[in-house]
């Protein structure tokens, strides 16, 4: 399990590539000022060595196909393989984005069809598929809100309201778009505190960014009231789609009063997360905002059965990403939608919610874990290990690490910030009851250990490829690249 760095496997003279010969073997001179003179310390390996190296690295990694992966708010559902098959189609891989429209009707149709699905699922009127990820979508959405207000001459709306339970990307995206972020506290039910909201809104309010179900997995049951308050104050309502899997196919953000939504195709719509991307974060808006969407949009000329790129978006915010977004991810999501259909999507959210509540029910009452706020959850449930920490010194982090010893992936921990020692569990609909039972069983066993032999939990993990990884030293003396490592080594200033 101790795989060297690819640089350390290098041997001078080895070759792993083939290239076609140049068309003509003429000498083309790079201007002297630009010619590369600095050394190029890239590794030299043959193809079999490269393949073996990355095969071994992959074997040192846990994915959804390895087992349950209940990272809260990440919706780590199974990634159907037919999605991959379609995304690998030559009609995806070998197509240039600037091709003449007549030669990319298939690609444009995929985008157009995907938009129709997303519109109906969310209750929105128009979508851009350009954003590359959720946060990129948030930035798009709040930029649209900004443009809308300014366009109407409403230039003093500089505040974006964000609940204290929100994802960090919400305030960060609002800030990037130039807003001042105002935090709204949660009430004892874990939902938005309406009084606080009332007192926060003003003529400076540009909007409210909300996740529903929220990051506690709790449905904001006063959503219509929330929408009224924000709208009456002149603000718009922004929907963070990270948790859409809790209501997919049953309830629509558009029907709750949201004006802008972003979705995560890599969460809700089963495209793989790839170790942190590529994702895709389409943004949908109500009709009155569609003129602000990024360019281009995809249009359909029904009469001539022709799809086209529409750059004619009068008040467009511009672009948030090159070209049309992560097209290969869109192909995956559309494949999933067509296989699932209305019935499948509804089933997905129902069982996702069932699974989360099943865990809540089964784990509740286990010593050391506490279930704050109301009991009924949607797609995820957040426990607090605060009692355990208090009584045994075992922290949420330790619980997470100990889970790894049982071959299980840990939940999201220490988020949302409003729950101390948070364990945020989102099983999704694609795990089996036996896997849920095994997960609860492991958490119970860890509770037993914490109260009988806490050291075993605190020193976890014991059975993983590597022992607990020190992130403090990593930040204190950063080694980010082979180049830095090599230089430290040359100075004799290294102990790793």
């Amino acid at each position: 399990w101790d795989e060297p760095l690819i640089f350390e496997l290098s041997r001078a003279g080895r070759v792993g590539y083939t290239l076609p010969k140049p068309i003509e073997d003429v000498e083309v001179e790079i201007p002297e000022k630009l010619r590369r003179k600095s050394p190029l310390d890239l590794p030299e390996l043959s193809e079999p060595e490269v393949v073996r190296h990355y095969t071994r690295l992959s074997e040192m990694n846990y994915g959804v196909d390895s087992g349950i992966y209940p990272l809260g708010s990440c919706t780590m559902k199974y990634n159907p393989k037919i999605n991959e098959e379609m995304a690998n189609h030559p009609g995806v891989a070998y197509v240039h984005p600037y091709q003449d429209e007549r030669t990319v009707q298939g690609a444009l149709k995929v985008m157009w069809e995907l938009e129709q699905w997303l519109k109906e699922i969310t209750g929105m009127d128009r979508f851009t598929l350009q954003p590359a990820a959720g946060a990129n979508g948030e930035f798009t959405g709040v930029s649209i809100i900004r443009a809308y207000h300014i366009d109407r001459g409403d230039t003093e709306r500089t505040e974006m309201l964000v609940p204290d339970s929100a994802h960090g990307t919400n305030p960060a995206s609002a800030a990037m778009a130039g807003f001042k972020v105002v935090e709204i506290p949660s009430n004892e039910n874990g939902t938005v505190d309406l009084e606080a909201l009332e007192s926060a809104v003003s003529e400076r309010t540009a909007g409210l960014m909300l996740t529903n179900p929220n990051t506690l997995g709790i449905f904001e049951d006063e959503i219509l009231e929330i929408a009224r308050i924000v709208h009456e104050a002149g603000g718009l309502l922004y929907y963070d789609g990270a948790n859409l899997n809790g209501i997919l196919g049953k309830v629509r953000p558009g029907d709750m009063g949201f004006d802008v939504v972003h979705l995560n195709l890599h969460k809700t719509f089963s495209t793989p997360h790839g170790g942190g991307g590529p994702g895709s974060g389409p943004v949908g808006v109500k009709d009155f905002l569609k003129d602000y969407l990024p360019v281009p949009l995809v249009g359909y000329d029904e009469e001539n059965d022709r799809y086209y790129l529409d750059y004619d978006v009068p008040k467009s915010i511009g672009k948030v990403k090159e070209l049309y977004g992560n097209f290969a991810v869109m192909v995956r999501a559309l494949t999933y939608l067509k296989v699932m259909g209305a019935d499948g999507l509804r089933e997905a959210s129902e069982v996702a919610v069932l699974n989360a509540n099943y865990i809540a029910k089964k784990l509740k009452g286990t010593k050391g874990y506490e279930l704050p706020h109301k009991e009924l959850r949607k797609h995820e449930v957040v426990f607090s290990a605060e009692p355990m920490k208090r009584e045994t010194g075992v922290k949420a982090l330790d619980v997470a690490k100990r889970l790894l010893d049982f071959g299980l992936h840990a939940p999201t921990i220490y988020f949302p910030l409003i729950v101390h020692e948070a364990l945020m569990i989102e099983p999704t609909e694609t795990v089996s009851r036996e896997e849920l039972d095994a997960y609860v069983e492991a958490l119970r066993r860890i509770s037993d250990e914490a109260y009988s032999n806490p050291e075993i939990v605190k020193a976890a993990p014991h059975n993983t490829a590597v022992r607990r990884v020190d992130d403090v030293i990593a930040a204190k003396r950063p080694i980010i690249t082979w180049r830095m490592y090599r230089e430290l080594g040359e100075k004799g200033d290294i102990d790793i």
Partner: protein
Amino acid sequence: MGKHYIPNSADREEMLKEMGLSSIEELFSDVPKGMVKEFNLPEGKSEYEVFLELNEVLSKNRTVLEMPSFLGAGTYFHYVPAHVRYLIERSEFLTAYTPYQPEISQGMLQALFEYQSLIAELVGLPIVNSSMYDWGTAMAEAALMSARVTKRNKFVVPRHLSPEKRRILGTYTTGPGLEVVEVPWNERGQMDLEKLKEAVEGAAGVYVEVPNFFGLLEEDVREIGEIAHEAGALFVVGVDPTILGIVEAPGELGADVVVGEAAYFGNPMNFGGPRAGIFATRNDRKLVRQMPGRIIGMTRTADGERAFVMTLQTREQHIRRAKATSNICSNEALVAVAAAIHLATLGPKGLRELGETVLKNTAYLKKRLSEIAEVPFEGVNFKDVLLRFEKPYGKIHEALLERNIHGGYYVGEHFPELGESALFAATETTKKEWIDALVEALKEVA
């Protein structure tokens, strides 16, 4: 349909019973009445039917394998060795998420560390993040970063910037209120240094590209950097990394920040996405603290063994929230890993050979095209070549399409001063027969 992905479809009733519930609807009792609806969407289909349908739809796209194409302008047909795709499709990579649990994610962490390391060698800067969305957003983030670092609010770019990037920059700089100033090109199609000197005062950053939007090598990179630095601005260089086997590392030419497109390695065109933005900077605390994106670092385990982990996270949104250096969370990790595998396969010799092959093929393209139309700028081209026609380019394009050849990218729309101009591109994948056929066709129609 859909149930075949959902194990507990079959266990619903039993589970509900065990939980003391009588129906799924009870789990949705917190949703306001009437809000739960039937949607106007088709029912699910079998995998086979969807396969058949989407295969038909996607087969309508004409690929560059069926039709020689000379499109470039920021997206290029490079060949991806088969083992690259094979490796990134291994489910342990493909289906993992952000490596929050390093003890069971060493594979992805090390692969990303290697990506950072390989890019560092190419660009000549030691600090590299594990990817931005693409070159364009990386450049825009560099603009924002330069404003944070210098506390200034002007960003200087060449006028000959791709429309894609120019628009992204516009959107990203709106919020923080950054002014974008364009420096015109000179008679060689490169940034006009005199005009730059006028524009640079009070600038947070100066941006230049190698090669530039016209496919030309900007020869005065070092001088531009010096001008920027003299004015107290950061120097940001955008680079097509496939050239870096033959062109000097921007870090060696004075760049404070290097951005570029990593997906030119190891990733197909995919109709424009996904791709992955390179973001690198000098090892200077002031810069590192302000840089966006996720960073993987080397560390050690409780046993003292070498290991990898996400690091310097206090810059990031999940910790710093509204004060983060960027909102980026999901990035383009797998695209970066594909790029790393391709780069590791090329090695130093392959990267040089790739650069030389592209250079020579571009030279052949330029030579042949100059038989037909005006080449407005001399100089050395890499991939793209600007060509100016006498007739309206649209008609020429049409005529080429009829001959099953896809012509270049029309730039007249964005740069009216260039007239009926288009960018034609070659890479290592371009065959001599294709260029010769293009020239023959142009002789007839241009």
